[in-house]
Each structure stands twice: as structure tokens, then as C-alpha cells.
């Protein structure tokens, strides 16, 4: 077991099935009698539906049913619910419009599902979908935030005047004003946080089966949290008691947030299965995914930072418009509020902060959590602003950060925006990243690039994030409609091997390996004797799944807590077997020992005694060795760190080449360094993608112009360098494993570092601002404009 517990880079056990082509993803599953569903989606951003004629489709070969919003209404299916209610400044609640599973009367974005065609083969369903005739009456539409908030803008919902979902704020306005009034310098910035599309490489899919004999529903779905989906299906949409619903999220090919939410298609395949009497499967096309998976970001912000003459921060004021899309997705209202404005203090001492956020409806796909979710938007805003302040005040960009960082002796640190950071060492990660990037050598590298006709730029970002989501009572007070604990059941088998049933879900994170390492560490059993089960609501306890970098911190803590119960029970059994007092028995390295003696029992012997209780304290201890735990976190966790980037810009073409990425993160205690580094790499790629390549572009009429891989540009291998990843650990103080979380750090820290680097590179040409994504065209135009040429 040595080398397979905490801190070991154990190779992943899930790899083998994926490498052999034996993974089991939702679309790989065909059930007996399988049928296929294809959705007919709106080509208009906003339109009334005059009529739907399904007769030709129904007559098409193999077609079993064509279902529409009328059928949904007749059968009484519930609308897709929102899981978080945000309140306005005046304490009234947000506007929460209905979200029928199939459009009723109106469509509100391109891709809004209108009809569902079910046929015996996928090809037949596709053919028939072409034959569904829908007569639309197009209405004025609005897609862009700025257009949605002007007087006379087309209204997405009658009940949302001015397209306003909510008008929310956080912080102390008066205290912030006071800081500004005495400030030596105020720097302001206007920023767009570009809309992105998550694009897990496995498209969403759902396969629903209603078992007539058992009166029971089974759903195979691409979900990050099968129990959340079951809860929403049971309580709100399908309206079936949960014990008659099984939700299985088998192997899932990436999520990045997009597979958290309960989507209409999950409800519809179950409902349709009962109607047609056969299993119904839907698998999204990529083009369809662009029009139906929740998107991310899409903010417009104005921010001001007040500083003392020596560059110390005094106050921060932020106004943000956040796009919600046409319908409220599961966590949408929480993202630009409690996962955004609460992070605006970053890793800095800022005495006063005031943030106002208006959430706005548009005729676009719903916007919700995508890797980082709110925290990248906060980090981007703050780190662009800090860089601008440094330039305007003539202070070195590293030094302005260094002098404002919260110091290690200031923890726990209460920010002016609700959070209390438990621990961190921001100067340490700053120093580590700078060493890695050789900051003193920058001038020489710039000169070398210049000699080759290139412009070299250095960018930095010091960031913090909140994850380990989340203390239930706290989020409940903030409007969450669910708890956010995690669960684990630990079953010790008679011969001492262990199965852990976790409420977390792995879709690339490697829990089958890392969670097993936790068990190895705690129980001293061998890695090969531990199995991790996840993803099937019939097998696992009710848990909240995987997002917000919560699995190791919250799910891992639940495993620890359950194992502690096992160890305690085992002590009583061991005391009996060793003829000792329970108080004298200790457990370590897989053995129960009588303190101060050489008498011991191996864990496996105790497990065996618990299941074959012949010589057993049967009067006081039940047989068996199995226990469960719910772990509800006491606080968020606060990973942080420093991300550095060097770019080379070709001034002739505007092409930005990322030549160096060096980061140092503090993600708390590390279970598996190989996997932690891998998580950082993936986040970095997505963050660099947002900074340089990715943008969901709607035209003013609400057509998604970037609706395929030919028009939505994601990083390919040649777009990225090797990453230098460093780690400095301060252990989380309030969970038993000391873990903070790593899933999102890359996507949070790197985008502003990239843009700061591009601006640094272009500064000699007079360019002072560039927006994401910094595409070659945008960079070239900025250079031309600054040089007085044609832009």
C-alpha cells in the first residue's frame, strides 16, 4: 500500500477501459426495443407559433410519435425549474418566467425545442423531423446585453419589464463612496467578458425507459449530478416519486458545468418512453449542442478602483450587466451574484467594495455555470483593473500586487463582500510563479523577440476563488433551493476489501483513483482492494454531484467522515478480540493495536469478525461493517495563486503566440499530484481559449453565427505550449482532508494574465486596451488604430 495513499501520483484505474474503447457513455447504451428521438428546434430567436402540422412526419416510415408543447401541457409536465432565487435591491424576488419543456405559443431563442419526433431508427427520426411543418410569426428579437436594456428594446418576457430579471447589489455603497472621496487616484475600466460555449467533447445525450411492469423510470444521461436530476424530475418536471426513478450518469465525456443542469430533453425522453412504450434515446448533434447547452460568462462591466498615492487599494465600485439568456437555467441567477461579486476582493486588502449586478433576459440560449462560473469574471475584472492602475500610476505590476496582497498572518480574513477566507499564502505563490517564469530575465527576452520582429509581453494575475461548494445553511439564506453537502457510504466486505459509494460524479476527474487513495490512506488497505462506485442513483446515497471544484473537498470529506465511523466501530470489535478496553485501542497503518503493547489485529481480521460474529461483542455492537456520512462544509474553500504568461505578438499579422505559461497554485492538500496538474492544464487551456480564441457570436437578430466547430474556435494542440505548474500548499482549515479544490483554477487565473501580456506586448505601439478574445484580426486592428492607420 505504500505509495498509493495521499500524495502519490497513482496511475488512474479508469484509464484501461477508455484506452481499450470499452468506456460506457450514454450514447453507447442501446436498450431492447430502442427508439430514437430528434428535436425540431426554432430557427427564429423570437416568434409566435401559429400552427404545427405533424401529419407528414407521422406518415413517414418508422415514426412512432410526434410530440409538441400541447402534449406536454395536456400531460401536465412541469416546467424546467430554476434552482436559485436571487432578490432585488428592494428585497423583492427576481422575475422567474415559465420554461416549458417544449415551446408553448412562443419560441424565445434559436434552438428552442418545439417538437419531438420519435422513430424506430435515428435516420428515420431525422427524416421525419424535416417533415414537421411549423408556421412561425417572427417577432422582434434581442440578443446583446446592451441592446436589451435600452428603452423600447424587444421584450423577451411580458412580465420582465426592460428585460430585467433582477437588480441586485452587494457591499456597502456609502463606505465605498467614502473611500473614493479621499482617494489620491481613481482608475476606471469598461470590460466585456465574452460569452463562451463549454463544448465537452461528448455531446449531451439521454436515454429514457419506462418499465410498464414495474411502473418505474430509468434515465441514462450525461449528467454531472444524477441525484440532482432525479430530484428535479421527481419533484418538478416528471412529477413521479423518487423511488420510482433511477438516474444513471455512466461514463460522461467531460462536463465543464454544462452537464450540471436539468435539461428538457431528460424529462422528454422519459415521458415519451411511457407514451410509445419503448425506450427513447436522444443524442445531441454538435450543431444542436451549440443551440441547447447552457453557455457561459457574457458580462458587460464598468469598474473603478480607488488608490492611495502609494498604490494601496482603498475601494472598488463595480456595475455589471449579466446575460441570462431567454430562460433561467438551474443555477443561472447564482453565477453573476454569489459566485461573482463575492469574489471581487480577490487576494487583496480592499477596505470597501460595492457591486451592482443587473441580470438581463435576451433571445439567446440560457447562460449558466461554465468552468469557474462567476469567479473568472471577477478575476478578469480585478486583474485588468489592477494592471491598468499600475500603468497609470507608474508602479511595477508585480509590486502593486505584492503591496496589496492579504498577508499570511491576516487569516482568517473577512472581505467586505461577505466571504471569510480561512487560509492562504499569496506572497508565496506569487514568488513561486515569478521564479518559474524568470521575471528578472524578461527585459532580455523582450529584446531578443524584438530582434526577430516580434513583440514580447508579460502578463500576470494573482487570483483567488471560492469552491468546495457549499455550506447548505449559508447558500439557503442566499436563495439556493437545495443543500450542497456531499455523501458517502463505505461498505467493508467480510474479507476486508472496501466499496465506497459516493454522491460525487467523475467525468474526467479520476475519482475512481483519487477517492481510492483516500481509503488507502485512512484504512491502510491496498489500493487494489478498494472500489469506488458513482453515478447511479439506485446504488449511491443521495448526493449533490460534481461542480464548483467540490468533489475532493466535500465528497472526499464525506468519505473521511464515513471511514472514521467505521474505524470507531472496528475499535470496539478489536477491543473484544484483543481483550482490551476500547479506550486503549488505537488504529493506524491498517492495524488495531493495544496502546503500549505488541498486541494487534489487522483491519481485515476485524472486518471478518464483524461479518462472522462468533467471537464478538454481540450484546453491544451490531454485526457488519458499513457506514454512511453526510458532510456539509463549514465554509467555502479558497484556492489561490499566481498565473504568469508570456506572449509573442506578430505586429504584421496580429497573431498572438503563447510562449510561456508558468503558474503557482495553492489548492490545499493534494491527493494525486499527477491528476491535480492535469486539472490545472485543462483549465489553463480553456482559459487561454477564452482569452484568445473563443466567442459565442450572436448577430443582432439572435442567430448564433458561431454555431459549429468551423466558426467557434477552441484551442488545438499547436495553439498551446507546455505548462509549468507549481504548487504551494496551505491546508484548508475547516475540512478533514485539508483540500481546497483544483478543477477551475486554470480557467479563473489565466485569462487576465493573457490579456495583460498582450497589452504589455503592444504598449510600445500605443495600444492600451484589447478585449477577449484577442484574435489576430482584433490585435491587428488595435495596432492599426494606435498607429493612426485604418482600423
Amino acid at each position, binding site marked *: 500500500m505504500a505509495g498509493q495513499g495521499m500524495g502519490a501520483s497513482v496511475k488512474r484505474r479508469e484509464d484501461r477501459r477508455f484506452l481499450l474503447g470499452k468506456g460506457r457513455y450514454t450514447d453507447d447504451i442501446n436498450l431492447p426495443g430502442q427508439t430514437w428521438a430528434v428535436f425540431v428546434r426554432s430557427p427564429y430567436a423570437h416568434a409566435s407559433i401559429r400552427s404545427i402540422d405533424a401529419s407528414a412526419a407521422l406518415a413517414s416510415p418508422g415514426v412512432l410519435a410526434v410530440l409538441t408543447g400541447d402534449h406536454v401541457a395536456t400531460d401536465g409536465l412541469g416546467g424546467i425549474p430554476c434552482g436559485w432565487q436571487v432578490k432585488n435591491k428592494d428585497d423583492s424576488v427576481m422575475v422567474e418566467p415559465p420554461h416549458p419543456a417544449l415551446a408553448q405559443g412562443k419560441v424565445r431563442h434559436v434552438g428552442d425545442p418545439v417538437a419531438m419526433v420519435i422513430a424506430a431508427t435515428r435516420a428515420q427520426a431525422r427524416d421525419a423531423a424535416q417533415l414537421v411543418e411549423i408556421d412561425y410569426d417572427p417577432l422582434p428579437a434581442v440578443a446583446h446585453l446592451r441592446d436589451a436594456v435600452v428603452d423600447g428594446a424587444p421584450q423577451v418576457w411580458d412580465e420582465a419589464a426592460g428585460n430585467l430579471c433582477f437588480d441586485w447589489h452587494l457591499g456597502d455603497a456609502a463606505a465605498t463612496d467614502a473611500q473614493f472621496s479621499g482617494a489620491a487616484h481613481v482608475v476606471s475600466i469598461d470590460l466585456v467578458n465574452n460569452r463562451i460555449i463549454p463544448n465537452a*467533447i*461528448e455531446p449531451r445525450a439521454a436515454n429514457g425507459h419506462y418499465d410498464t411492469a414495474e411502473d418505474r423510470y430509468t434515465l441514462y444521461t450525461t449528467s454531472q449530478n444524477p441525484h440532482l436530476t432525479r430530484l428535479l424530475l421527481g419533484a418538478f418536471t416528471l412529477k413521479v416519486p423518487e423511488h420510482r426513478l433511477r438516474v444513471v450518469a455512466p461514463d460522461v465525456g467531460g462536463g465543464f458545468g454544462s452537464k450540471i443542469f436539468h435539461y428538457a430533453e431528460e424529462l422528454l425522453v422519459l415521458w415519451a418512453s411511457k407514451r410509445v412504450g419503448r425506450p427513447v434515446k436522444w*443524442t445531441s448533434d*454538435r450543431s444542436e449542442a451549440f443551440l441547447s447547452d447552457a453557455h457561459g460568462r457574457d458580462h458587460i462591466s464598468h469598474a473603478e478602483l480607488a488608490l492611495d498615492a502609494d498604490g494601496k487599494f482603498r475601494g472598488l465600485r463595480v456595475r455589471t450587466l449579466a446575460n441570462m439568456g431567454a430562460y433561467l437555467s438551474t443555477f443561472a441567477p447564482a453565477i453573476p451574484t454569489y459566485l461573482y461579486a463575492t469574489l471581487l476582493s480577490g487576494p487583496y486588502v480592499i477596505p470597501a467594495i460595492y457591486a451592482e449586478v443587473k441580470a438581463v433576459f435576451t433571445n439567446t440560449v440560457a447562460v449558466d455555470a461554465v468552468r469557474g462560473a462567476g469567479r473568472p469574471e471577477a478575476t478578469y475584472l480585478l486583474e485588468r483593473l489592477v494592471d491598468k492602475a499600475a500603468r497609470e500610476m507608474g508602479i511595477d505590476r508585480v509590486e502593486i500586487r505584492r503591496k496589496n496582497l492579504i498577508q499570511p498572518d491576516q487569516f482568517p480574513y473577512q472581505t467586505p463582500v461577505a466571504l471569510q477566507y480561512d487560509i492562504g499564502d499569496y506572497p508565496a505563490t506569487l514568488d513561486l510563479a515569478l521564479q518559474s517564469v524568470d521575471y528578472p530575465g524578461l527585459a532580455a527576452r523582450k529584446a531578443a523577440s524584438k530582434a526577430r520582429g516580434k513583440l514580447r509581453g508579460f502578463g500576470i494575475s494573482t487570483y483567488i476563488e471560492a469552491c468546495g461548494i457549499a455550506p447548505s445553511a449559508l447558500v439557503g439564506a442566499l436563495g439556493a433551493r437545495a443543500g450542497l453537502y456531499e455523501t458517502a457510504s463505505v461498505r467493508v466486505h467480510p474479507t476486508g476489501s472496501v466499496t465506497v459509494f459516493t454522491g460525487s460524479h467523475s467525468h474526467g476527474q479520476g475519482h475512481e483513483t483519487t477517492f481510492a487513495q483516500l481509503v488507502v490512506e485512512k484504512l491502510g488497505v491496498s489500493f487494489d482492494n478498494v472500489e469506488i462506485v458513482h453515478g447511479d442513483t439506485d446504488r449511491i446515497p443521495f448526493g449533490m454531484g460534481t461542480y464548483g471544484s467540490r468533489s475532493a473537498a466535500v465528497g472526499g470529506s464525506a468519505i473521511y467522515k464515513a471511514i472514521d465511523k467505521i474505524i470507531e466501530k472496528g475499535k470496539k470489535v478489536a477491543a473484544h478480540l484483543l481483550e482490551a478496553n476500547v479506550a486503549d485501542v488505537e488504529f493506524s497503518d491498517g492495524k488495531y493495536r493495544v496502546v503500549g503493547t505488541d498486541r494487534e489485529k489487522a483491519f481485515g481480521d476485524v472486518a471478518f469478525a464483524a461479518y462472522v460474529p462468533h467471537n464478538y461483542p454481540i450484546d453491544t455492537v451490531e454485526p457488519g461493517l458499513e457506514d454512511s456520512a453526510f458532510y456539509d462544509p463549514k465554509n467555502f474553500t479558497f484556492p489561490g495563486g499566481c498565473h504568469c504568461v508570456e506572449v509573442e505578438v506578430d505586429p504584421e499579422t496580429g497573431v498572438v503566440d503563447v510562449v510561456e505559461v508558468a503558474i503557482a497554485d495553492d489548492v490545499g492538500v493534494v491527493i494525486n499530484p499527477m491528476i491535480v496538474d*492535469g486539472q490545472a492544464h485543462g*483549465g489553463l487551456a480553456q482559459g487561454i481559449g477564452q482569452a484568445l480564441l473563443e466567442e459565442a457570436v450572436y448577430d443582432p437578430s439572435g442567430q448564433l453565427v458561431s454555431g459549429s466547430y468551423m466558426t467557434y474556435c477552441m*484551442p488545438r*494542440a499547436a495553439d498551446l505550449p507546455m505548462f509549468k505548474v507549481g504548487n504551494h500548499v496551505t491546508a484548508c482549515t475547516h475540512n478533514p482532508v485539508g483540500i481546497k479544490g483544483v478543477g477551475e483554477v486554470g480557467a479563473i487565473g489565466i485569462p487576465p494574465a493573457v490579456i495583460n501580456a498582450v497589452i504589455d506586448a503592444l504598449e510600445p505601439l500605443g495600444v492600451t486596451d484589447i478585449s477577449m478574445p484577442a484574435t489576430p484580426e482584433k490585435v491587428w486592428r488595435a495596432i492599426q488604430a494606435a498607429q493612426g492607420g485604418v482600423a
Partner: protein
Amino acid sequence: MATTTLKVNGETRSVDVEPRTLLVELLREHLRLTGTHVGCDTSQCGACTVWVDGKSVKSCAMLALEADGREVTTIEGMATNGSLHPMQAAFHECHGLQCGFCTPGMVMIASELVRRNPEPTESEVRHWLEGNYCRCTGYHNIVKAVLTAAETIRSQGGA
């Protein structure tokens, strides 16, 4: 319906398909070789990459009937008696996969590279992979895996 007869992972298979059936549909739906994945509908993600007569092909961009009389190798055909191909082993060793969805396509395209160019540079690897998207790994460990596999294969005298 039309019949296509092809060799898949060394075994001759004869399948009746609609003429419009894509090779990837033949593999996934007719032969139930579900290791080959579909990640897009514009032939850009590379998750469906297989070998046809030893050459990497995006199986979403080829009709099943075009594969008639040809030899197709999928990810299921890469291991020998349960022992991983050096490229598969290197992906495992280097943590070159996370969710596993792009992995079969990556292994197929990368193995062809190493067959053609036994000693690729990092830059050559990155450019060779340009037809294959990965959203999890940032490519860092995939590139490492391909370089590692190339070294292994060279040390074993080619594969």
C-alpha cells in the same frame, strides 16, 4: 439496402446498410464497436478517427460503402491479447486522458504519426494532432504521451 464487406480489426464482416450510412454508424450501431466516438457533425473533432488500410480517417466523413473491401482498425483493435499498444500504455503512464471521450481518436491518430515519423519533435506532434480536439487535458500530457510512446516504440525496434 446494400451490402458492404470489410475487415474490421482483422475479422471479415458483411453488413447490410442503407447507402447513406456513415462508416462511424456502421462501426457503432451495426457492429456495436462503441469505442469510436462522435463529437461533432463537421468532421473537426477527430473523436471518430480510425484507420482505413492503415491510414487515419475520420469515420464520420466516409460512407460505410466506401469501406467495402478495405481493412479498418478501431481502438478496440489496438491492444494485443489484452496487453496495451505502446501508445495506449503511454497515455496511461503520462495521464494523457481524463474523460476518455477524445482518447480513442487521439490514440489512433498519434499511432499513425509514430509509425510514419518514429522520432517526432514536440512541435511535429502538436501539428499532427491538429484534427483532434481535447477539452480536458490542455494537450500537455497527450503530447508527452506521444513523445513517450515514440521513444518506447523506437527502443523496441518499431511497431
